[in-house]
C-alpha cells in the first residue's frame, strides 16, 4: 500500500473517495438554514459568496485529492493523547512512537485522504505537543495534514512548518507553468483546523494571512442537546460568522466548517438524533457554499467491536448520503478520547464499504449485459463469460471480513475483525516505508516545535 492513495482503488473498487448518490435534502436542514440565516448580517452573507467551494488536499508525497468536490473523504486521527492497543485493553498515554505509527498506518491505508496527527502525552503545553505531532506526521506520512490549532500564534507556527516542508516538494513544470519546478505552496500540504473558543476568529484570520486553508470549528455541544438540530443554530452561525470574517479579510481564501468531536461526556453521546443533526449541519453549510467536515466516526466503544461498528457504519452512511465532504475521527475510540491503530484499520474498511455502496452503479448497454444473459440462458453460469472477466474486478473486495466456512473459522481460532485488524496493522507497518523526509527539513520542523525558529 503506497503511492497515490486515491488511484490505488480505481473506478468501482470501492477504495476511493465516496461520490454519487445522495439522500434528498432533509427538512431539518431547511429549518436549520433558516434559523442560521436569521442570525447572520447581510454583509456577512455577501462576503461568503467569495469563498471557494473547496480546495485540493495535496501531500508532500501524495497526489492531490479534491475536498468539497461532491466526494466524501476520510481523515484519520484527532487530538487524543492516549492510545488503546487492542490486545492490552485499557488505554495508556501515547508516545511519539505511537503518533508516528498512527500516521504511517494512515499513510499506507488508501482510504485515508488526510491525517490529523494525534499528539503524544507529556508535560509540555498542549499546543507544543500538537506541533510535535504535526512534525511527526510530516515525517511518517506523505499525505495532507489536518493540523488543529487553538490560537493565531499556533497557526503561524504550523504555516512555518508547512512552508519548510514545501521547500522539499517540487511541483511539476506543467503544474507550475515554469520551466523549473517550483516549490509547492504551503497550503497544498496542510489545512488548519481551528478550535472553537476565544482564539477561533484570530486563528482563522491568521490561517488566511498565511495562505493556509482553514476549517472553522462548530462547537459540538449541540450534539448532546435534547434537540440537536435546534441547538445547532447558534454554534453553526458563530462558525459561519468567522468564515465570513475570513472572506472579508481575504476574499477567496479557502475556508470551510468542521464539527469536532463532542467532549466525551457520560450519557450524552452521539446517537441517531445527533447523526440527523450532522446531516442538517452538513447540508446547511453546503447550501451556504462552504465545504463541511465532521467527526462522524470517533466511536464511543472501547474496542473495534460490534458497538464501534454500528456507530461508525451509521455515521458513515449518514455522512455519505447527506453530502458531507469529509469524515474525521477515523481511528478514534472512547468518543474521541483514545486513538487505536486497529480501529483505524476497521474504520477504513467501513469507509471503503460505504464508498462502494454510495457510489451506486451505472445502467447502460454494457452493464445490462443482455447479450451475455441470452448467451448464458437458462440454468447456465456466468463464470466463464468474457463479460464477467472484464467486469469482475469492479466487485468490492474485503480486507477484514471473514468469509471462510464455519468449520475453518473454528479451526483458525474464531478470529474476528479486531484480530484481523491487528494482523493487518502489524503487516502494514512492517511493509510500509513512509516517503523519507529531508533531514534538514526535519531539523527545521523540530526547531519550530521548540520555538527556536518561526
Amino acid at each position, binding site marked *: 500500500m503506497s503511492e497515490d492513495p486515491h488511484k490505488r482503488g480505481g473506478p468501482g473498487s470501492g477504495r476511493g473517495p465516496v461520490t454519487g*448518490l445522495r*439522500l*434528498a435534502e*432533509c427538512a431539518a436542514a431547511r429549518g436549520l438554514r433558516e434559523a442560521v440565516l436569521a442570525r447572520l448580517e447581510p454583509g456577512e452573507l455577501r462576503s461568503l459568496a467569495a469563498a471557494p467551494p473547496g480546495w485540493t488536499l495535496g501531500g508532500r508525497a501524495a497526489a492531490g485529492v479534491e475536498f468539497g468536490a461532491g466526494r466524501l473523504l476520510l481523515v484519520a486521527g484527532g487530538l487524543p493523547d492516549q492510545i488503546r492497543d487492542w490486545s492490552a485493553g485499557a488505554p495508556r498515554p501515547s508516545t511519539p512512537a505511537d503518533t508516528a505509527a498512527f500516521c504511517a498506518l494512515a499513510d499506507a491505508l488508501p482510504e485515508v485522504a488526510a491525517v490529523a496527527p494525534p499528539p503524544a502525552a507529556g508535560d509540555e503545553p498542549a499546543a507544543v505537543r500538537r506541533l510535535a505531532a504535526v512534525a511527526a506526521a510530516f515525517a511518517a506520512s506523505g499525505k495532507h495534514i489536518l493540523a488543529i490549532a487553538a490560537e493565531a500564534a499556533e497557526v503561524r507556527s504550523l504555516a512555518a512548518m508547512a512552508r519548510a516542508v514545501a521547500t522539499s516538494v517540487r511541483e511539476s513544470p506543467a503544474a507550475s507553468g515554469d520551466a523549473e519546478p517550483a516549490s509547492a505552496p504551503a497550503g497544498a500540504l496542510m489545512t488548519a483546523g481551528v478550535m472553537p473558543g476565544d482564539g477561533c476568529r484570530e486563528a482563522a484570520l491568521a490561517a488566511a494571512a498565511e495562505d493556509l486553508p482553514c476549517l472553522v470549528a462548530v462547537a459540538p455541544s449541540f450534539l448532546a*442537546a*435534547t*434537540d440537536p*438540530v*435546534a*441547538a445547532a443554530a447558534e454554534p453553526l452561525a458563530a462558525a459561519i460568522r468567522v468564515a465570513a470574517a475570513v472572506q472579508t479579510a481575504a476574499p477567496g481564501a479557502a475556508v470551510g466548517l468542521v464539527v469536532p468531536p463532542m467532549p466525551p461526556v*457520560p450519557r450524552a*453521546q452521539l*446517537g441517531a*438524533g445527533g*447523526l440527523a443533526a450532522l446531516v*442538517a449541519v452538513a447540508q446547511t453549510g453546503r447550501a451556504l457554499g462552504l465545504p463541511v467536515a465532521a467527526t462522524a466516526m470517533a466511536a464511543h*466503544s*472501547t474496542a473495534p*467491536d*460490534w*458497538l*464501534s*461498528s*454500528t456507530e461508525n*457504519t*451509521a455515521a458513515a452512511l*449518514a455522512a455519505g*448520503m447527506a453530502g458531507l465532504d469529509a469524515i474525521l475521527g477515523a481511528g478514534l475510540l472512547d468518543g474521541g478520547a483514545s486513538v487505536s491503530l486497529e480501529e483505524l484499520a476497521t474504520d477504513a474498511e*467501513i469507509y471503503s*464499504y460505504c464508498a462502494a*455502496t454510495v457510489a*451506486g*452503479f*451505472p*445502467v*447502460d448497454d454494457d452493464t*445490462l*449485459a*443482455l447479450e*451475455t*444473459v*441470452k448467451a*448464458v440462458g*437458462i*440454468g447456465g*453460469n*456466468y463464470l466463464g*463469460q468474457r463479460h464477467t472477466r472484464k*467486469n*469482475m474486478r*469492479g*466487485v468490492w473486495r474485503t480486507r*477484514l*471480513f*471473514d*468469509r*471462510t*466456512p464455519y468449520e475453518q473459522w473454528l479451526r483458525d481460532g474464531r478470529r*474476528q*475483525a479486531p484480530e484481523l485488524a491487528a494482523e493487518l496493522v502489524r503487516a502494514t507497518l512492517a511493509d510500509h516505508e513512509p516517503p523519507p523526509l529531508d533531514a534538514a527539513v526535519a531539523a527545521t520542523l523540530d526547531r519550530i516545535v521548540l520555538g527556536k525558529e518561526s
Partner: protein
Amino acid sequence: MSPRTDPIAPRLSWDVLSSADIERVHEASLRVLEETGVRFPSDTALDVLEAGGCRVDRATRVARLPRQVVMACVKAAPREYVLAGRDPDADLRIDQKHCYLSNDASGVFVLDRRTGEKRPSTKADVAESARFVDALPSVSYYWGPVVTSRDVPPATKSLHDAEAVFTSTSKHFQTVTTVGQKQAEYVVEMAAAIAGGSDELRRRPILSFMQCTVDPLSHDAANLEANMVAARHGLPSGFMPMPLACGTGPATLAGTLVVNQAEALSGVVLLQLVNPGAPCFVSAAPSVIDLKSGGYTGGSPEDYLLAAACTQLAHFYGLPIAMGTMATGAKAPDWQAAVDDSFSTFASVMTGADMMNGCGLLDGSKVLSYPHLIMEIEIYGIVQRMAKGIEVSDETLAVEVIQRVGPNGTYLGEKHTREHLRDIWRPTVWDRSTYAQWIQSGKAGALEKATRIADQILESYRPEPLPEDAAAELAAIVARADKELAES
C-alpha cells in the same frame, strides 16, 4: 401492553436508480422474458402459462412471456393487502408505506445457549424461535422457520415446522420450507383449521408462502406447485430470486438486476394466471460471488445496491417486495455482523422494502443465535430512528425555549425537554457507561447484555396459546400427513 408489531414508516428515501435507469432495466427484463424465457419444470404451471398467452416449449419446459401478458398480470396483482396474524393486533398492512422486519429463515444449526457451540436444529428449536419472535414487537412476523426441524421425517418436515410455529406464535407465518402440492395443501389445511375455515383464511390470511427460484431464469417444480396452491386459496405468495453476480448473474449489477427481475416477474405472471387478483409479492436476495472462494459473500456493498434497486423496481410496478435483509456472513455477532446488518437494514428501509427477511442467523443464514437477533433489533431501532428524519415545526424548533435558556444555560429542567425526552432513541444493548462503570460491570458489552435479554425471554415469555381444539386438529393433520407422505 406493548404493540405486537413495530414497522418503520420511512420519511427519508434513497434512490439508487434514476427514472431512466428503471425504464432501461424494465425494458431489458421484458426482453429477456419474451426472447429467452424462463424454465417452469411443472406441467401444471406450463398449462396455466400457455392458456394465459405465453409461448411454451414442452420439450425444454421453457415459457416465453410476452410483454402484454407480463404487464397485464402486474396490473392484476393487488397493491395492498393484509398479512393477518392469529392475533388481529399483529396484522401487517402491506401498503408500500411500511417496512416490516421478520426473522431470517432456513437455518440448520443453533448456537446452543448452554454450550455456546453449534448443533443441528430440531422441531423444539422451531417452536422456541417462534415463541421468541412472538415476544418481540420489532420482529413483526415469523418467516421461515428460522431453523428447520431436522429430527422429523424429511417428507413432512414443513408440516412439523408449521405445527411448531402455529402453536408458538400468534403472529403472521410466512412459510419458506413448504414445497410440493401435497405438503402445501396440508399446511393450508392447518391454517384453515386455526382461522375457522378456508373462506375465513382467505379473508384473513394468517399464512403466506415464499419460494426461491433457481438462478438463472428457472424455477423448481415443487416450489411452483406449492405457490400455485397458495394462489388458488387466495393466500399471499411470492418468489425470491437469489442471483450471484459473476456466477448466476452477470458481473455488472445492472445485468444481475435484469436476471433477478425476469425471475421475480415470471412468478407474478404465473400466480396471477392461476388466480387473477390473488395477493402476491416479488422478492429478492441478490448478491455477488466471493471472488476468493467462489462462495456466497453473506454481505457486500453490491448486495445493498441490488437490494435498493430491486425495491425501487418493485414499487415502479406497484408490487410489494420482500427483501433479503441482514443475514450476515459473520460467524459471531461481531464487528463484521454489525457492518453487514447496518448497511443492509439501511438500504432496505431507505428504499421502503415492505417485508425485510430477516434477523437471527449467522454464517450466511445457517446458524441461529438469539443474542445476535437481539443485537440486530438494536440496529433496526437505530435505522428506524434515522428513517424518521427530523420534524421541523414551531414546536420542535423551540425558539422560545432557546431564547429563555440563553447562552450557557441548560435545557434539562425545561418543560419542553420533559415533553420531548421520550422521542429520543434509547439503547438496549449499546454501552454508554463511563469507562469506570464498564470495568465495574465486568466489561459487559453488547453481546453480554443481549444474552441476558435473550435468556430472560426464553425463560419467561409465554405466547397467547393456540386453542386446544385447534392444536389437536393440527396434530391430527400432521399425523395423517406423516402416514400418507412418509409412506408414499
